[in-house]
């Protein structure tokens, strides 16, 4: 049951060209920094990345975009990223935009073994094109399919050797949802502890969903919009 691997390189060792990856995080908050670096290092290509955002030019998934490792992004908001925009306009990169709640729920659906879910998000818009619309109690809903990925790569605050995960603050976001949706799920954590050290009532992601875990290092945790009030 010990799921500990040595490091990010070991965790991603069998990720191959053309695979579908999920990457946790919202903006640059709660992203799997170590695994992204290892993916850049490994140079694996033609990836489909399911992630709420696409990082910035020089951080997060932006680093993989720089190396042209991504063939397709599936996101709700791709933000401000010049290289992303260039690749998109040149046709090197394909983008599928999905409402944020739909994206989250489609990941969750996979983790719950539900093949499809219903959401009103996008009804009557171009998002609905080609999708089944169904009326319940007078309201229209789109049927959206569960999302699976070859690998889900998430970042947690604490984790134990059995793969149980705890997230911190809004760095939780998509991480526990994607953790449930990976055929293989990799978790990098700020603090890795022995099984039995975490309170079983406080686990956000039960270890059954996690296949590999390691303690990350050198977290930069960049802030995208530093906003403060005066002392």
């Amino acid at each position, binding site marked *: 049951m010990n799921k500990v691997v040595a490091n990010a390189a070991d965790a991603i060792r069998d990720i191959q060209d053309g695979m579908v990856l999920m990457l946790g995080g*919202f903006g640059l908050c709660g992203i799997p920094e170590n695994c992204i670096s290892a993916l850049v290092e490994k140079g694996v290509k033609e990836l489909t990345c399911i992630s709420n955002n696409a990082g910035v030019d020089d951080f997060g998934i932006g680093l993989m975009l720089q190396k042209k490792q991504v063939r397709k992004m599936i996101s709700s908001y791709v933000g401000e990223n010049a290289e992303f925009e260039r690749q998109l306009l040149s046709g090197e990169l394909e983008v599928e935009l999905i*409402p*944020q*709640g739909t994206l*989250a729920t489609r990941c969750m659906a996979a983790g719950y073994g539900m093949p499809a879910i219903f959401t009103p*998000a996008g009804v009557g*818009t171009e998002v609905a094109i080609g999708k089944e619309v169904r009326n319940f109690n007078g309201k229209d809903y789109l049927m959206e399919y569960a999302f699976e990925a070859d690998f889900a790569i998430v970042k947690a605050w604490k984790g134990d050797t059995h793969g149980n995960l705890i997230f911190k603050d809004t*760095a939780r976001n998509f991480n526990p949802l994607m953790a449930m949706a990976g055929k293989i799920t990799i978790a990098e954590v700020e603090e890795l502890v022995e099984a039995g050290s975490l309170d079983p009532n406080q686990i956000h992601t039960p270890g059954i969903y996690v296949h590999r875990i390691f303690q990350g290092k050198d977290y930069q945790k960049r*802030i995208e919009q530093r906003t403060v009030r005066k002392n």
Partner: protein
Amino acid sequence: MSLTKEQIAQRIAKELKSGYYVNLGIGIPTLVANYIPKDMHVVLQSENGLLGMGPFPYEGAEDPDLINAGKQTITTVPGSAFFDSALSFGMIRAGKVDLTVLGAMEVSDSGDIANWKIPGKMVKGMGGAMDLVASAKNIIVAMMHTNPKGESKLLPACTLPITGVRCVKKIVSDLAVLDVTPEGFKLLERAPGVSVEEIVAKTAGKLVVEGEIPEIML
């Protein structure tokens, strides 16, 4: 005098009630938080996974793990709770959020809203906007009444790709407060010194004006 962005936010704050759970979009809606009366208890939801959003942190107290849906560093207030993005949109979809305030590029007189895409321009994505407009039980739109060319943004039908259909309940623009009714936009209040005629001229969609229209009180 048309309202400033701050005044639009201030007017929208008057729609709040104690005990409300509220989601404020990016832009003018965010400013609404500054006008919540001190004795009123309103809980702010941030769709990236927080109930009980507080003000920006003091300098030096920024936490990269604690941001809002606009990716700004924030704080929490007592009684807050964190959760994942699916539960966040789950509570929105289930109608648990009492009020959603959003910006818009266009609104139609049947309540359609367009605020995510301009054909020909780089598309950044809809983020959570489509989920919010499709699910919120009460949506107030904060917007300018006209575009920089002076053309009405309150239309018979949206010209831009829409974000959601028949969802906007109320609009607070720089010129007026309007309800969206089955008969179209219904003028409720006008900005101080702005005439009903000006609002009529600048509203392309169907507009209902009945009786005396009072000035907006801030």
